């Protein structure tokens, strides 16, 4: 890392200044909320920490989001690999379809999911004797999965695309089956993309509100709880929960980022 001096890097300085604006834009509300909470209403935060409903909802959010990410991983990573390696007519359409959950309003997504996964829906009906989606854990997971899976697929696909197929060919010529080549060469080389995609997927799942409240108001995840606390008791009751969620998420993400940074060994020299 070089230090910036105006003589040789005016462009970077301008970009840095512009970048600081957007960084401030992101940080100001978050810091305002967190520090406002710490300074003016620390007791509220302590209450939130001691409130079993709050902790339960945060843990539930992390757990359901993790489940959604695991499902996204099992079904999304293979799709990402397929898209990275094969061209076929209509590929552009498939890729757009994957992006749709990012684009559509999440309430609409929730309604669409309820229609399909409800007790009379195309999927919910045949499964109704085994699993219930509406107002149940599977419903939360389904809503989270829907809105967050594009992040994992897109990131993994980028990762796979960055691995030269020749490396897989060479591995094959050395006696690796296609599965060996995938797991010994392709996966290690795209691991960081897959991990970052998984983190994004998990993060997006945890933050989902609009789609979840339509299909599964219960069991109540943290974003719904924050909303409910706000409606029933006002900001002073909801913001400690929000701050707690922000802090927990931040810690988890920093740890995950640090882990993924350690995986970059061969990306640089």
């Amino acid at each position, binding site marked *: 890392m070089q230090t910036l001096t105006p003589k040789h890097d005016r462009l970077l300085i301008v970009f840095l200044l512009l970048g600081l604006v957007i960084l401030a834009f992101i940080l100001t509300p978050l810091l305002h909320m967190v520090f406002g909470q710490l300074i003016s209403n620390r007791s509220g935060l302590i209450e939130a920490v001691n409130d079993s*409903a709050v902790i339960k*909802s945060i843990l539930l959010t992390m757990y359901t989001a993790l489940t959604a990410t695991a499902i996204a991983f099992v079904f999304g990573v293979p799709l990402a690999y397929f898209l990275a390696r094969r061209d076929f007519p209509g590929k552009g359409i498939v890729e757009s379809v994957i992006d749709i959950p990012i684009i559509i309003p999440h*309430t609409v997504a*929730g*309604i669409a999911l*309820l*229609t399909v996964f*409800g*007790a*009379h*829906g195309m999927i919910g009906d045949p499964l109704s004797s085994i699993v*219930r989606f*509406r*107002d149940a854990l599977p419903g939360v997971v389904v809503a989270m999965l829907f809105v967050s899976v594009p992040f994992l697929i897109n990131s993994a696909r980028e990762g796979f695309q960055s691995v030269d197929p020749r490396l897989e060919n060479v591995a094959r010529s050395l006696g690796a089956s296609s599965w060996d080549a995938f797991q010994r060469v392709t996966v290690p080389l795209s691991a960081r993309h897959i991990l970052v995609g998984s983190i994004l997927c998990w993060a997006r799942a945890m933050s989902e509100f609009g789609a979840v*409240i*339509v299909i599964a*108001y*219960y069991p*109540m995840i943290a974003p*719904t*709880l924050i*909303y*409910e*606390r*706000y*409606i*029933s*008791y*006002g*900001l002073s009751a909801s913001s400690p929960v929000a701050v707690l969620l922000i802090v927990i998420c931040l810690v988890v993400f920093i740890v995950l980022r640090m882990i993924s940074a350690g995986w970059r060994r061969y990306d640089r020299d």
Partner: protein
Amino acid sequence: MKKTAILIMIMLCSVIALGCVGTDTDTTTDGSADGGDTPEVHSGTLTVFHAGSLSIPFAKLEEVFEAAHPGIDVQCEAAGSAATIRKVTELHKEADIVASADYSLIPSMMYPEYADWYLQFARNQIVLAYTDKSRYADEINADNWYEILRRDDVRFGFSNPNDDPCGYRSQMTILLAEAHYGDDMIYEDLIEANSAMAMVYDAANGTYTLHMPASESIDPSAKLMVRSMEMELIAGLDAQEIDYYFIYRSVAEQHGQLFLELPVEIDLSSVTYADTYKTVQVVQANGNLVTGKPVVYGITVPKNARDPEMGLEFVKLVVSPEGQQIFVDLGQPPIVPAVGSGEVPEEVRGMVEMG
């Protein structure tokens, strides 16, 4: 290529800049209009926060108002009534109009800092809405609805009593049904058995009080669908996730749903039965106690309104014969004349009856 990119940037910036300048001019003309003979040209935006159940009539009122005041852009924001008021009192958003599905929330939540008057301008009634696909839709009537809701294969919904007046009013209606039909198991069978909501009888006053647990602890069974707002219940009804739900008549009518009118003694529509209604009470999770009373909508111009003058103009439209006709057309009976309370401004006093 590079040139095109720069050109696009410049164009974008100019459009954004023009947009900002545009609104600026709008707001400056507000104050700059001089007294004289020229009629005052009013322009700018008028922000209206209203209860979700007012969405359709207010959209209609917006049209009429904008036609009468060409310079004004009315922006309506719908939310649950409590959320609507909290946007003003907690988030300090500036609204020129606040309209709640329960007029009493205005004095209880906004007085004295954010408002000091309100008008009761429309009524509504609790009905049981359904579709032709709902189970037993062909046999349900005002005498057997609670029997049908009791059946194992029937599911029904209502909005969260902590969030939405329609939610606690639905509870009141179900509770009032016990006395009306002479069946003291209705609330227990329909609600208590399926959730953590509980009823307490106060023998001293002869009143029933319903205790709402915190939203996260309502714990509804598969038979019930509880949602923060009615929008999500409508989705549930469309998906046949529920067969029936309790809702305002106007909403059911505006969404083209079938609905069962309940007896006037329990549907909270009539001032005549106000004494009956007040035998039930709901304590919300936040401790707020609500007593049963007719469904009456309240409207006010908050103290922090940016354009109180135009806000008042809008209120006048709501309580005018033209405005009242809009409510009639949409199945939401207006209160004629509207009833005022508090420091009602001079301009509207003539149009209302002080209560």
